[in-house]
C-alpha cells in the first residue's frame, strides 16, 4: 500500500475490468483505486458496460438458428449441379421395380418435390444426432403418434415396420414443411445407424411412385410421390443399402 506507482497504466485498468490480472496485480490496482475515486468510478462504469452488454445481447444466444444458416442450406448451392445430374441420369424405379431413364421434362413439375427432399435431408441431419430427444413421441405410443400425425397432415399416415430390413421404429415428430405440417419417423438399426422417413401431404401432381435418388452432403435420399403424399427416406447409407430399405418402406406402406 505504501509503495504505490505514480500512475496506473490504462492497460492495467482495463485488464482489471475484464478480470485478466493475477492476484498481485489485482491488489496493486485495488490499492490505487482506493486513492483515486475518479478511476474507481471509471472501473465501475466499464464493468457496468460489460454487464449491460451481456444482459442486452445474451438472449440472442437462445434464439433458434434460422434454417438458411444451417450448413445443409449452404451445401445445397454446391450440390445443385450434382443433384440435377443425379436426377437426369439417375436411375428410377417405375412401378415398384424396374429401372428406366428419368425424363428431364419432368423437372419443372418436380420443384415442390425437390424442396421436400431438401427439407427432409435437413430434418434428418438436425434430428438424428439427438441423444435425448430424437423423437417427439416414442414408439411406445405408436398408435397415438400415427393418429396425431394423420390428423395434422389430413391424411392417413402410417409408420411402416422395417424390422425385416433390420430397423426398429424409434418414434416420430411433427415438423413444419413447405406446404404445412409434415411428419418424420425415425428408425434405428442394431449398430445405432439412424434413418428418417419424411412424409409430406398435399404434394402437387400425382406421382407415379417411382423412386428417385438425391444426395445432400453425406445424406442419401430416396424419394417418391404416392397418391398425394410425398415420401423421402434419408440416411447416411450406401445407395444400394438405402434402396433396400426404401423398398421395404414402400412395401410396408402398401401392404
Amino acid at each position: 500500500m505504501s509503495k504505490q506507482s505514480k500512475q496506473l497504466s490504462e492497460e492495467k485498468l482495463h485488464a482489471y475490468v475484464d478480470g485478466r490480472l493475477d492476484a498481485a496485480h489485482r491488489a496493486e490496482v485495488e490499492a490505487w483505486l482506493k486513492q483515486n475515486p475518479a478511476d474507481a468510478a471509471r472501473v465501475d462504469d466499464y464493468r457496468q458496460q460489460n454487464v449491460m452488454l451481456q444482459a442486452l445481447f445474451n438472449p440472442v444466444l437462445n434464439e433458434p438458428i434460422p434454417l438458411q444458416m444451417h450448413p445443409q442450406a449452404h451445401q445445397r448451392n454446391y450440390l445443385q449441379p450434382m443433384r440435377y445430374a443425379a436426377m437426369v441420369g439417375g436411375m428410377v424405379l417405375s412401378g415398384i421395380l424396374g429401372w428406366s431413364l428419368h425424363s428431364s421434362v419432368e423437372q419443372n413439375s418436380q420443384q415442390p418435390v425437390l424442396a421436400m427432399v431438401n427439407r427432409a435431408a435437413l430434418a434428418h441431419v438436425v434430428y438424428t444426432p439427438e441423444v435425448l430427444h430424437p423423437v417427439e413421441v416414442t414408439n411406445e405410443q405408436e398408435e397415438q403418434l400415427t393418429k396425431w400425425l394423420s390428423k395434422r397432415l389430413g391424411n392417413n399416415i402410417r409408420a411402416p415396420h422395417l424390422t425385416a430390413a433390420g430397423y426398429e421404429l424409434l418414434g416420430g415428430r411433427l415438423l413444419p414443411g413447405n406446404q404445412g405440417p409434415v411428419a418424420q419417423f425415425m428408425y434405428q438399426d442394431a449398430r445405432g445407424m439412424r434413418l428418417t422417413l419424411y412424409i409430406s401431404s398435399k404434394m402437387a401432381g400425382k406421382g407415379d411412385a417411382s423412386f428417385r435418388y438425391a444426395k445432400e452432403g453425406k445424406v442419401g435420399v430416396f424419394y417418391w410421390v404416392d397418391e398425394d403424399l410425398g415420401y423421402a427416406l434419408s440416411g447416411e447409407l450406401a445407395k444400394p443399402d438405402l434402396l433396400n430399405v426404401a423398398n421395404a418402406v414402400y412395401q410396408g406402406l402398401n401392404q
Partner: protein
Amino acid sequence: MDNMNANIVEQIPRLRRYARALTGDSHSADDLVQDTLERAWSKLYMWRRGSDLRAWMFSIMHNTFINHIRKNKIVTVSMDDDVLEIPTRATQEDDLHLRDLTAAISKLAYEYREVVLLIGLEQMSYEDVAKVLGIPMGTVMSRLSRGRGKLRSLMAGESAPVLRRVK
C-alpha cells in the same frame, strides 16, 4: 466434413449475438452472419486444422462487416468522421436504461465498437482480438480505452437531460 458442420454451427449463436450488437438491428445482423457463413464455407480449405475456429470465423465476420460498410449495407460512424466529443461526466447511475446502451453503441465509431464488443460481450482475450481484427495489441488497447471512454460519455450524455428534468 460433418464435424466441421457441427463446429461451424456451434459458432452461429455467438456470431449472431456479436452481429446484433455490432449492427444494432436483427435484419442487418442476420445478413452479416449469412454472408460470413457463406464466406467461411467457400474458404474452409484455408482454415488450418487445429487452429482456433472461433477466431477464424470472427475475423471473417470482421472482413464481411467492413465490406458491408463499404457497400453501405450498414450505416455507421467511422473514427475518421468522429465528431462525438461529449465532455465526460462521471455517473454512478446503476439503472441506466439498456435502451440507452443500444443508442450509445450505434454512435460509437465502428473501430471502437468492434473492440469494446469483442472484449466486453464476446469476452475474447486481447490477443485474440488483435488477431481477429488484424491490428497490433497496442491498437487494441488504445481502441478499448477510447471506446469505453466514449461509450461512458455517450451514456452519461444520453441520461443527463432526463436526470435534470427529474430534479
